[in-house]
């Protein structure tokens, strides 16, 4: 129950502020955890691709390129791992809620330009990485059963913490 509450709380804290129902069910299984982690990467790549279309700030663009490169590397590794383990990632309410919230954010940011867009993108990157890192540390890593999946999630957490720090530095420099 506590864990269930903590992931709901972590995800509700996302900057997009979209509340979504988390059914009172068992903790996520490995197939769902893999899906959530993969989805979180896809979302960040989509946000970075939007930034590469819209931003002209070299630092923001370099950060976005790093997000595309690093999240793709983790997701490629995750895909190889689920194939090796014969696990089919399983869609679930958390993945769906993350995707819905991210699409709303992409649509909202589409109307912004210049400095306003850069600030919105980078501040959301801080909040988004913070949220995903909270979910990884409090729920996804502890709940993962397979040791290789757990290890990959731990690498993901270390990487995303660095991304969060980088986004925080960048956000400060944009002020």
């Amino acid at each position: 129950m506590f864990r269930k509450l903590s992931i709901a709380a972590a995800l509700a804290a996302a900057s997009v502020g979209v509340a979504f129902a988390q059914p009172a069910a068992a903790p996520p299984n490995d197939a769902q955890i893999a899906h959530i982690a993969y989805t979180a990467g896809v979302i960040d790549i989509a946000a970075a691709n939007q930034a590469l279309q819209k931003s002209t700030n070299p630092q923001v663009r370099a950060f976005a390129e790093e997000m595309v490169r690093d999240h793709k590397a983790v997701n490629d590794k995750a895909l190889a791992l689920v194939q090796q383990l014969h696990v089919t990632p399983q869609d679930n309410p958390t993945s769906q809620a993350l995707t819905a919230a991210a699409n709303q954010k992409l649509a909202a940011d589409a109307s912004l330009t210049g400095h306003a867009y850069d600030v919105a993108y980078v501040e959301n990157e801080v909040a988004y990485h913070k949220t995903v890192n909270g979910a990884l540390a409090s729920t996804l890593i502890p709940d993962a059963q397979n040791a290789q999946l757990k290890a990959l999630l731990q690498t993901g957490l270390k990487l995303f913490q660095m991304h969060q720090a980088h986004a925080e530095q960048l956000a400060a420099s944009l002020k």
Partner: protein
Amino acid sequence: MRSLWLTAVLAAVSALVAAAPPAKVYQVVIDNLAFGPAPAVVHVGDTVRWVNDDLFLHSATASDHSFDLTLQPKGSGGVVMKRAGVISYICRYHPGMKGQIVVRK
């Protein structure tokens, strides 16, 4: 006559070798978003080679701008240490990754 000349050349070569110990190559392995341990002793003229065993693109970027190597995943790159001192370096993509090389004369 020829053997005298050869002896002279050999003597000269061995004197040179004695004067300058051969340069060495040291490795720093990058894995799981961290630089591995630095070699204990590096002298001017030695090479430090970074081997990126990680999934991610990294760099070895000196804070004194003396080197800036881009290191592809599973790739490597090296640089000859040209002056003595303590050289701090980071990964420019993941600034939380930090390392240090101590170079002696």
